[in-house]
């Protein structure tokens, strides 16, 4: 089975771990526990195995450790749809991802869709102009499960198609 690495990138507190938890074991916790370092999870899909690197979020004082991005076949950049500053950071996250893995496919999750937010659909559409490598931008909710499987599924479909049988097998 194809096995590949996907890294969750984003500012701290945007819900990267919650999205992984919802995707891996369909669970959610209201409690916020900041991820320090990296936690690796595995999920077997139909034709592939996805290794999810849930890394420490970017903060004002601590940049993302580039080494964690090494060898990723795709990225999920997560922003908090209720915090504009985390949406503004998406551009920098894309640059960081492509510095390590040029042209790697990216999905953008605007998470916490279950809360009230102000960003308009037009502004969301504008995000797609940030890079040609962006596969899709979805409003997700780790709490309700909205679009969580879709975002991981679409990235998986793209990667599996592009890797074909050339990838490593485990």
């Amino acid at each position, binding site marked *: 089975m194809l*096995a590949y690495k996907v890294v969750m990138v984003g500012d701290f507190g945007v819900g990267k771990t919650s999205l992984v938890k919802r995707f891996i074991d369909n669970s959610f916790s209201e409690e916020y526990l900041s991820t320090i370092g990296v936690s*690796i999870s595995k999920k077997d899909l139909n034709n592939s195995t996805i290794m999810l690197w849930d890394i420490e979020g970017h903060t004002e004082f601590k940049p993302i450790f580039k080494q964690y991005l*090494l060898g990723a076949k795709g990225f999920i950049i997560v922003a908090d749809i209720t915090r504009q*500053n985390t949406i503004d950071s998406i551009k920098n996250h894309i640059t960081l991802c492509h510095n390590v893995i040029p042209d790697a496919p990216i999905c953008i999750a605007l998470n916490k869709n279950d809360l009230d937010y102000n960003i308009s659909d037009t502004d969301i559409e504008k995000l797609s102009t940030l890079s040609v490598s962006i596969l899709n931008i979805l409003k997700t909710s780790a709490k309700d499960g909205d679009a969580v499987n879709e975002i991981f599924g679409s990235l998986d479909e793209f990667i599996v198609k592009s890797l074909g049988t050339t990838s490593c097998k485990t």
Partner: protein
Amino acid sequence: MQNITKLICSKNKISYIVFNKEFQTLDYNNTIENIIDKPSSLKVGIDVREVMWEIIGIEENILALLNAQTEETIIHFPMILKENEYYDLDIETFISSKGEKLFIAYVIQRAKESLSYVSMIKEINKKTLLYESQIQNSKEQYCDLINQRLLNFNVDMDGFITLVNNAFLYFFDLSNEKIIGQHFSKFFKARDLNLNANATVIFNAKNLKDEVISFHANIIPVTKDSIIYENIIICQDITYLKQIEEELKFAAGHDSLTGLPNRSLLLEKIDNTIEISKKNHTLFCICFIDLNKFKPVNDNYGHHAGDMLLKHIAKILSDFVRKGDIVARIGGDEFIILFNSLNSKEDIDIMQERLNHLPKKHPLIYSKEDLIYFDFSIGIATYPDDANDTHSLIQIADKMMYRNKKSRV
């Protein structure tokens, strides 16, 4: 693998696993079993990626170490979380005793000091997030306050909207696309739809709760080379002024103690009733009510008890009359009931009889100890038999009441 390396690893509690360029496991020490992902699968010969998920994806980077294609001599992943413990992973090359270039992955458990650092960072992040959300909330509250009061939009010279502020979007809960290009009259109703520069107009619009909100709108012209090409319209919510107006209107026609219509409103109502009765040839009467011995209530129990008694009477009279009848307080202890549309004079007698029994049935329970009994005198004037104008009807009813009072006292 050199025995000396094994010894150092064992002494320093460093776990390791050795593999070749085909990623086949060649050697490992026992402590690695506590750290790897699938310990039951671990044996010499298996693909190292089955037990070390960190390696998946970085195969090329690892092989590059072997071929000296990179300046890096080591791949370092710090702070990998496994089962609530943190580990650092270092992958590097070494030459075996047989002269073969192999890889060794060292897994080093983080010292406890690192864990206290982790807790501290977690706490900082938690507080920062809370702080950010509080700022966000206060910003939203501030915005809400402005949004409730001030809507701005620009219109071209034909009244089509060219620009709106967030307050506008917030009020109508619409996106820019659904507003821009629309005529402003789609959103606001006004007596005059002509927007004259520097004028002020009153707009009405329905909010999301379907309430009509009134706005005072200022029209500010935007000019270029002395030619007006657009108008900015600033709308301020003045619904509260309308509410004040309604309150004042109510206060002008009602008694502040009992909430009943006052003399002025009653006169208006009787005038209207006369008009209707004239047209329909119907009968109505007014009943003048005056409290007997009200002064002793004030003297014995105080003015508060007197006020309570008046409120109490207002309540029992209001409960007594039919829908459409009017109870008014016209002076200190004087009330008038306007009984609309009566069928016959017998109705008046029955009503008077029942009215006379009310005080006995409903004394005022002022306190646990004080039960205040009261009594009133009644005088009735009937339209059109006794008089056919308001003033005369009241005068006659008053006289009748006075006569009855004299006979009682």
